[in-house]
């Protein structure tokens, strides 16, 4: 009796663990792009240069206007640092933002949108 109770407990424990592992270990390919984009009528221009660094990815990516790149990240919640620069690559503006990846939230990060912080800066591709 007691044994089966314990075993049930153990099984539940492992199920929880697995769910946790699933989330913690799942990898995503995020598209970071610095392109012109229109979100509800509002036309957003790309920045000259941006340096994007997503916390869990290996190294930051440097994009010029119209550029797009892929970063591989593990897990759900991340932090993004963006340095927006002019042609001479002097940093104009820094943005720091936490975000969570979910089934609905896509995996395309639009820096222009983020820059003029539009809520749906993460979209489905």
């Amino acid at each position, binding site marked *: 009796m*007691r*044994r089966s109770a*314990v*075993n049930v407990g*153990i099984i539940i424990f492992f199920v929880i663990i697995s769910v946790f592992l699933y989330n913690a270990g799942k990898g995503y390919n995020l598209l970071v792009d610095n392109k012109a984009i229109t979100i509800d009528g509002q036309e957003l221009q790309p920045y000259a240069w941006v340096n994007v660094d997503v916390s869990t990815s290996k190294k930051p990516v440097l994009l010029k206007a119209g550029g797009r790149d892929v970063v591989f990240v593990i897990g759900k919640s991340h932090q993004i640092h963006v340095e927006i620069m002019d042609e001479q690559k002097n940093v104009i503006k820094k943005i720091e933002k936490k975000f969570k990846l979910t089934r609905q939230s896509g995996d395309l990060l639009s820096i222009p949108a983020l820059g003029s912080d539009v809520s749906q800066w993460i979209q489905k591709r």
Partner: protein
Amino acid sequence: MALSEPLLKMEKIGKAYFGNRVLKDVSFTLEKGQILGLVGENGAGKSTLMNILFGMSVIQETGGYEGKFFINGEEAQFKNPLDALDAGIGMVHQEFSLIPGFTAAENIVLNREPTQYNVLVESFGDRLRTLNTDEMELRGKTAIEKLNVVIDSDTLVSEMPVGHKQFTEIAREIDKEKTQLLVLDEPTAVLTESEAEILLASMRKLAAMGIAIIFISHRLHEIIDVCDKIVVLRDGQVVHETTPAQTNVMEIATHMVGRNIESAFAREETVRSFAKDILKVEHLWVDMPGETVRDVSFSVKEGEIFGIGGLAGQGKLGIANGIMGMYPSGGSVVFDGKEVVLNDPRSPLSMGIASVSEDRRGVGLLLEEPISWNIIFTTLQMQSRFLKPVFGGLFKIRDEEAIREATQKYIEALEIKCTGEHQRVQELSGGNQQKVCLAKAFALHPKLLFVSEPTRGIDVGAKRVVLDTLREYNQKRGTTIVMISSELEELRSICDQIAIVNEGRIGGTRPATCPSTEFGLLMLGEIKNGVEKVGV
């Protein structure tokens, strides 16, 4: 429950295997702390009785038993040995049930190991408890000490002398707190004199501690030494119940073997005489497991029926098997003036020596093959009969026709009950299987025929037929027969001379006409004249 109740009370216990009665209303009682000596020839029913007491599965499988027995006044019915163990009955078998690679201690506490809790138990159950080795040691030691013998509790069983194994087994039984009745089945058979002494001593000690013991032994003096009570079994009945004070070896022996002559097999009282020796055996030794022959010499006269008797395990069976080359052997065997090559089955067969093995199912028969094969095979191999040429004598194949005829002949002659020569032997009854074995031997037209335990495990009617067939065969064809049997009366009924084997040597040879008591004592090695030469 009143203390006056005896520990064990047997009431009219009876048992029959397939209408073949082996136990008939056996009754006796055994008090706490008593030692009861149970004696009797092989096949007297001792082991069957113990099987019943121990709830062995064979009993149920063969239709249970009659009567009942009581432990401390309560009727006991054991479905399996484990029940018996629970009831506090311990048994030490002749063949050891010990784990060779375990130490004495480990064996003593086998499956009753003291264990400790650990957390994994919560999930995987008690079998994952860790062993408490120290306590195992301790329990082992104490159990051994109770027997006051010196055995190091951490020697491996595989490295022990046989005596110590015996003690280890007994120690295991003692270690069970519950054990109140201990059955020792010929424990001293494997022991040296001195070891036996120690064992007897420890038995007394155990008895003093209040454990009752049933002691089965063929060494009558031991029985008389140690027992408080002696029960003699013969033909499955209690023929005598006494106490050491009132009896002696001679008397017990008489009761063991002494049948009233008009029973079983009458013999016509003609003393035959024979001219020359046909078989001369000198200093034969045979490595047959359980039937070791150490040094045997005897000679058989042409045309006689020569009996070899003795208790089981003394080596009488080894003799025939040794000569027939079934087990490694040495010494000299001269047949008809020619030396028999030992360790080569072909040699004796080609000289016209045939044998009917005691191990019918194991050696004697091809169980999955038809009767015909069983009968003719040896002849076909040894004498190349039952073969016919094909392709103008290019090569020879089995002559099914001839085989059928021959088989039919024997089936009729020996009244083998079967559906036909194609019936598989395993479907026949024990008696008919035995007849097939005989037919196999006869088919060789042997000059000399060894017959081992011809009536073992077959019903009385069949016994008659088999024995008559042998006698007839001997008289008609003058074939010399050497008959080896544990059943003394059987031997006495048809043999001319009987040699008794004891501890791998000839204990003595007597004409079949002398009284059974004489033979009885030879069997029990109570007459020490193994040196006497045979047939002179």
